[in-house]
């Protein structure tokens, strides 16, 4: 209590430190005052805001500077050369030049022509994003680029959705090289390689069906920068770290008119799967519970972690993958072409030969052979497909073909899809069409029974150009399927489904609504013949222009005699003034399902509320069959449940900015139950800041910690005690931090000293952490972790600095790690940034990473990234 009272008094005293007025006069070299010169104060600390002033008729300007702040000041005027200097606001006064004299400008500005291009163009069913408008230093790969574009959402597994709809394929210059494994493309390809991203809202693999107006799926086409066409582009990464962890990945791509080649490789033993499949994760039990004071279940080897905890070798996974895809196009005349696409990965391969002979009757024929585990959601599958389409005038298209699927697993069977007929009867009357499709599909299982699937679809699509400013589209879906959808491990589902939907599209927004249901019967696997009823309804509103997304989804699956499951999800986002709400609920009862509630609420960036409740029931591998009512077939949802565990997590945060006072607090309450641990944690993190001072209290790993923070230039001091001195334009800061944990743990940062002279900064930090921990089933232990570091840095401008850090700390029981970091940052001109980073750690085995990385980034035409690892020896371009 006394400690917090002392903190409060300290903050209140700090809040009385007033801003310092700064007045200067701007003149020319002849001493005459300069009117209307702009003066911008850029704070060297990113968290602070820029301030500015305009000179008056006397050439004077006046601003209020925050105490203990440092600014780069830029004085500009059309008739004078730009002047730049630094200003430092110190307790003893302001350090700044007394006179500001501008030299006459001797350069005449000349006219150039600039074209303002819109970042997004919407034409009919294609939305085109200009990559330049979204590229930045943090967009290294295509996936980073897509994540910045409105409407795109990237899952942790790399799956891309656009306005809630799954993206089915990602093409490069109109050609699909990777199929559904498009993460290989989006996660490897350099963002700077891309010129435009086209979202095809009505994407068809079959050109003839598209011409007939058949509703398609969502696809993405990447167009390459013109100056990079026909040139190889790619990169290589080689990394290594402690415990003999390594990762090497690289890719190369060549795009020409008739030839496209994409290759990649990824070799690693850090469980980094290029496709991010769930199997890449490994859970470690109680590895360091005694040290961390928390459950060992937290020690999960994350996918792609180059510096994992010191784990036994048995937990290390090798996830090596490599692939090559190439496409060759042969074209003869205007109407005849042939195309060969071939690809191979470590576990799958695919070959696709298609020909397009545009004669009478117009036809498109395709032969495809592949072994793509992601294509069919079934491992070890190969299939041979031949399809052909005939366009009978403009009123009908006939599709016929045959597909044979070979499944190599315990159940060997051949899936024969015979004569898949799509007969479209189109009445094209002023862009309004009615189309019906019917077909049948037969699957023959070799060693058991023969099943069949019959499906019929009827859908309507109308295009109403309407008023001149709007175009709208209406589509309704009717989908009726019956038959056995799923044959896995003697488990099958047979059912019927019906769905209806409507889709309205305007220039910048769309609204969709679907409702459907299905009923299915299972066989004996789940304890008797079960009747499953699914009800699904969803509605969504999207507005790309103002970034509003509203999504509601209801899915109910009921097994009438045993279990029921319901999920409902809704999401509302509005921007740029943030108003966000997310809600999801999945419920299930009956023994092998999971319950989870998640609510997130955010209002105008001032209030955030999150509540999550999840409950896992005893471990049992199972799967929930969902005979889908839309799409082309069933999806097998496989759920592997872990040990029983309940978890509540409630977090409430409030953030307010009242004049210069910032108030934030958050409350977090967590309850977890497991087989051996019962750890209720209370997180209370109120914080109040004013004039650079911040009073905060936090919880860290089941410890409660209080801090008073003050932004003391140039070192951010966290403290109960702070001494600031000023000697020769430098300063010394001493800090103490002390916390007592609820579990009798002690966390103390004894002192932290910094010295700055001119632009050179020296810091020394010494920290001791004592942890007296007693868990429910662990004996009490006292562990002391001393650590110290020394840092020297030199900043010669706002955009350039170099720093060197040496540190030593216990890496584990009985091990010490010594580290050395060197970092150079220099922004060159307006477009280029150069960074050099060296990193070296040594432990007792003298085996750690030595890494140097450097990159240049520019928004003009390409991004160049280089990374060099001394241990492995690599270079990425």
């Amino acid at each position, binding site marked *: 209590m006394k400690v917090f009272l002392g903190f409060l008094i300290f903050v209140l005293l700090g809040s009385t430190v007033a801003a310092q007025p700064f007045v200067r006069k701007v003149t020319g070299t002849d001493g005459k005052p300069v009117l209307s010169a*702009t003066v*911008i104060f850029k704070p060297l600390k990113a968290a602070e805001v820029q*301030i500015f002033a*305009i000179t008056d008729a006397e050439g004077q300007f006046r601003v209020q500077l925050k105490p203990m702040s440092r600014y780069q000041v830029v004085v500009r005027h*059309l*008739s004078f050369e730009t002047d730049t200097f630094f200003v430092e606001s110190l307790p003893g006064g302001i350090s700044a030049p007394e006179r500001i004299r501008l030299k006459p400008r001797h350069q005449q500005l*000349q*006219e150039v022509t600039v074209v*303002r*291009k819109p970042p997004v163009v919407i034409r009919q069913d294609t939305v085109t994003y200009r990559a330049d408008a979204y590229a930045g230093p943090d967009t290294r790969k295509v996936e980073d680029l897509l994540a910045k574009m409105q409407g795109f959402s990237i899952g942790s597994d790399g799956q891309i959705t656009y306005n809630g709809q799954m993206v089915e394929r990602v093409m490069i210059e109109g050609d699909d090289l990777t199929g559904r494994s498009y993460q290989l493309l989006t996660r490897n390809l350099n963002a700077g390689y891309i010129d435009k991203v086209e979202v095809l809202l009505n994407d068809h693999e079959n050109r003839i069906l598209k011409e007939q107006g058949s509703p398609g799926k969502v696809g993405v086409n990447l167009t390459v920068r013109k100056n990079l066409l026909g040139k190889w582009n790619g990169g290589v990464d080689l990394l290594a770290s402690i415990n003999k962890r390594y990762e090497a990945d690289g890719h190369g791509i060549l795009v020409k008119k008739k030839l496209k080649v994409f290759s990649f490789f990824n070799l690693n033993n850090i469980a980094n799967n290029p496709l991010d499949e769930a199997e890449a994760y490994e859970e470690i039990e109680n590895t360091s519970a005694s040290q961390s004071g928390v459950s060992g279940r937290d020690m999960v080897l994350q996918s792609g972690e180059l510096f994992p905890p010191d784990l036994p070798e048995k937990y290390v996974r090798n996830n090596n993958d490599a692939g090559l895809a190439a496409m060759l196009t042969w074209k003869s005349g205007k109407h005849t072409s042939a195309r060969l696409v071939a690809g191979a990965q470590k576990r799958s391969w695919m070959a696709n030969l298609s020909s397009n002979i545009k004669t009478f009757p117009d036809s498109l024929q395709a032969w495809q052979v592949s072994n793509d585990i992601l294509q069919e959601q079934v491992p070890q599958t190969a299939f041979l497909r031949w399809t052909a389409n005939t366009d009978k005038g403009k009123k009908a298209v006939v599709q016929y073909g045959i597909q044979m699927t070979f499944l190599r697993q315990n159940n060997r069977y051949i899936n024969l899809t015979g004569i898949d007929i799509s007969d479209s009867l189109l009445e094209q009357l002023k862009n309004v069409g009615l189309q019906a499709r019917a077909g049948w599909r037969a699957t023959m299982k070799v060693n058991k029974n023969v099943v069949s699937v019959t499906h019929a679809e009827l859908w309507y699509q109308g295009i109403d150009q309407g008023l001149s400013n709007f175009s709208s589209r209406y589509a309704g879906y009717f989908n009726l399927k019956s038959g056995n959808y799923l044959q896995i491990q003697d488990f099958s589902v047979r059912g019927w489904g019906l769905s209806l939907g409507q889709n309205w599209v305007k220039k910048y927004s769309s609204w969709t609504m679907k409702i459907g249901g299905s009923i299915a019967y299972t066989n004996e696997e789940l304890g008797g013949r079960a009747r499953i009823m699914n009800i699904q309804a969803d509605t969504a509103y999207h507005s790309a222009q103002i970034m509003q997304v509203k999504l509601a989804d209801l899915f109910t699956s009921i097994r009438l005699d045993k279990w029921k499951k319901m999920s409902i999800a809704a999401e509302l986002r509005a921007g740029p003034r943030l108003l966000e709400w997310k809600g999801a609920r999945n419920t299930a009862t009956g023994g092998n399902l999971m319950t989870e509630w998640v609510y997130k609420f955010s209002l105008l960036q001032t209030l955030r509320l999150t509540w999550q409740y999840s409950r896992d029931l005893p471990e049992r591998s199972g799967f929930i069959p969902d005979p889908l009512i839309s799409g082309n077939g069933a999806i097998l949802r496989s759920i592997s449940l872990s040990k029983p565990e309940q978890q509540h997590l409630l977090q409430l945060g409030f953030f307010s900015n009242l004049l210069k006072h910032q108030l934030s607090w958050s409350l977090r309450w967590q309850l977890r139950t497991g087989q051996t641990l019962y750890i209720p944690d209370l997180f209370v993190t109120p914080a109040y800041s004013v004039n650079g001072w911040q009073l905060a209290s936090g919880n860290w790993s089941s410890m409660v910690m209080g801090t008073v923070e003050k932004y003391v230039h140039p070192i951010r001091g966290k403290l109960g005690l702070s001494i600031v001195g000023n000697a020769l334009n430098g300063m010394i800061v001493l800090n103490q931090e002390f916390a007592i944990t609820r579990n009798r743990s002690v966390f103390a940062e004894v002192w932290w000293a910094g010295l700055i002279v001119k632009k050179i900064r020296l810091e020394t930090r010494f920290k001791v952490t004592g942890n007296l921990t007693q868990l429910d089933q662990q004996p009490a232990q006292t562990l002391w972790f001393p650590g110290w570091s020394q840092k020297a840095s030199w900043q010669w401008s706002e955009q350039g600095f170099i720093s060197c850090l040496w540190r030593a700390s216990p890496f584990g029981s009985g091990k010490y790690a010594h580290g050395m970091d060197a970092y150079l940052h220099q922004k060159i001109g307006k477009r280029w940034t150069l960074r050099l980073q060296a990193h070296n750690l040594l432990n007792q085995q003298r085996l750690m990473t030595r890494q140097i990385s450097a990159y240049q980034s520019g928004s003009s035409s390409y991004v160049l990234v280089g990374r060099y690892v001394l241990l492995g020896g690599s270079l990425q371009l």
Partner: protein
Amino acid sequence: MYHIILYWIGLLTVAPSQTNNNLTVAYSVKFNDEFDRGRKERLYQASLEISEGRSKYYMVAKESFQPTDEHDLRFTPDSSHLVFTSQNESILIAQEYGFNGKAFFVSDSLYPMVWEILPDEKKIDSLVCLKARCHFRGREYIAWFVPDIPIPYGPWKMGGLPGLIVDLQDVDENLVIQLQSIQFKSSAFVLPSKVKYTMDKHIEELKKVTQRLQQSASVDQSGNCLSCKGSSKASFYFWEKLPQ
């Protein structure tokens, strides 16, 4: 609309020691005539002329005003928003129109809005722009300005930023102003002299007039009211909202 040609300003030609500070800045303007009520947008062509520390801003509608109904009246002509500034004298003079349709000048404060510079940065073609935000006369505005063009001017009454305002819009997108071009020329213009009628007085007058008209409209059942939504109620919508 989207392909806007902007003339500006590169480098490196040796010239006399003093550069030309006379500029003409062209903007395209989209204004919602039905602001605060609905949407009916019109396009304008605007011009900001800068010469010898003074500026003149005006805009001309590309489309004529179409009233929503017989009661929808407009008191400003299609060529309006005439605004003069003088940096030397720190004054701003704007042309206003009375309910009788006659124009007069009002002396207003020069850039009274308090800008907050935000960390956002974007490029409008080759121009690096910074984002700023302010509240002015009841509305919130977002401006993008170019620090490399160090003149504190902007369209309409907006300005006072350390760089030319190239894009301006209110958060409801009733007013969207985008830069079209900048040229090194400006025709001579003279500021209206001896304008003693201030904005504060004008606001007080507007309050009195609107109150009187509302009382009058409330008893007038003939529908002969101004921008009225009902036969017994008159509603007045001002772009610069009257303080309560």
